[in-house]
């Protein structure tokens, strides 16, 4: 029990993972794994099940067929929570609170990465000037950037990013690519969905194609 499992155990692996809604298959069966430093791009047209796949991995959709493992352990609350960070279409932040207040709350909930503060994270994503504005006064792209600041601020080695490029300008897209590259360099893993309209920085990233 004291000896750790083989160091090669992937952070996240899926075996014959499939999901159907009302007996209608949405995706799968899929086999893939995500090791430290790896990025996987999930591509597919609108409605091909990209978001559904990420939600199943994040444990927000039940009763998927197949198996998901985190760090070699079967997916459960204990093996998932605190390791997975989720950035979805919804910001996960309250519109009446400022970016700083929202990030402060989430940091209290999840903890912070060593050496990172909410202010530093917001400066990095270029929203330092709007720190104390209520979120509802920010544009969609700025809200997305606040979401990116959250990824920087709170710990978690598996990033599940659902359309992180949506609403972002060219600099924003470069920023997402840079953040993913840094995350992978630190030994994290990233699963990104995209409908294929933006260029993806890492040419070595593996691709999963949904809904041929």
């Amino acid at each position, binding site marked *: 029990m004291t000896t750790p499992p083989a160091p090669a155990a992937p952070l996240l692996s899926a075996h014959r993972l499939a999901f159907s809604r009302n007996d209608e298959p949405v995706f799968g069966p899929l086999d893939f794994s995500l090791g430290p430093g790896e990025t996987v791009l999930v591509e597919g047209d609108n409605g091909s099940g990209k978001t559904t796949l990420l939600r199943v991995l994040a444990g*927000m959709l039940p009763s998927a067929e197949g198996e998901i493992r985190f760090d070699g352990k079967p997916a459960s609350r204990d093996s998932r929570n605190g390791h*997975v960070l989720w950035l979805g279409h919804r*910001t996960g932040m309250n519109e009446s*609170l400022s970016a700083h207040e929202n990030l*402060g709350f989430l940091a*209290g*909930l999840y903890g912070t*990465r060593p050496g990172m503060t909410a202010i530093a994270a917001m400066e990095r994503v270029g929203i330092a000037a709007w720190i104390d504005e209520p979120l509802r006064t920010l544009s969609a792209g700025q809200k997305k950037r606040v979401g990116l600041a959250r990824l920087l601020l709170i710990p978690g080695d598996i990033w599940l990013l659902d359309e992180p490029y949506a609403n972002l300008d060219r600099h924003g897209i470069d920023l997402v690519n840079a953040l993913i590259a840094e995350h992978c360099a*630190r030994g994290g893993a990233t699963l990104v969905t995209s409908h294929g309209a933006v260029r993806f920085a890492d040419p070595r990233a593996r691709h999963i194609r949904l809904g041929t």
Partner: protein
Amino acid sequence: MNEGRIGRSMPAAKAGMAGACIALLRRDFVLAWRRRGELFLPLLYAVIVAALFPFALGPDPELLARIAGGVLLVIVVLAMLPALESMFRADLEDGTLEQWLLAPQPLALLALIRVIAHWLTTVLPLIVVMPLLGVLLNLPVKVLPVLIVALLLATPLLALLGSVLSALAAGARRSGILMALMLLPLAVPVVIFAAGAVAAAQSGMPYIAPLMWLAAALVLAIVLAPLACAAALRIAVES
């Protein structure tokens, strides 16, 4: 050797449970303060209803003194209802619940903290103005403390029951009517015990037993309701 790994190798960076509870309480208080106009409405509603009763029934002090306890109980329950419905609504819509689900803290604990914050911000003010409303309705002075204790036990119980229903109804449209229909049968026994204590105090009889029943139910609800609430929140996020 794998110092680059985040999270797992840095347990010191993890948030403690107490820290998470304080963060959630502070967030809810800040939000409540931003919407203090909204929070004022149930209070206004309670004062208006209590002020209208003597006009509608005629200014017979004895009649008012007889019904005051029951009327005030019902006023508080009704004033609580609209806010109960939206306990988790905004968090479901903006994706906050998704973040709750993935947090290292147990979902039931977060749900319990949310109920406490909700009770402190929306229900406690109603209990604070009870002496004033008691005067409006000619509530006997010796009954007032019993009424307040009964409310201090009954309202958290209702808030806990309401949190489960609110989580169940969060995904549904027009959940207000649904909430009222579902909460009514659960509210009836709570009101009966609270009113029983008030009536006993009014007629000079021992009133401890019904209060004890309320306290027992509250203890049970503190333990069980957050678990049910967490399960309902999971369903709400999944759908």
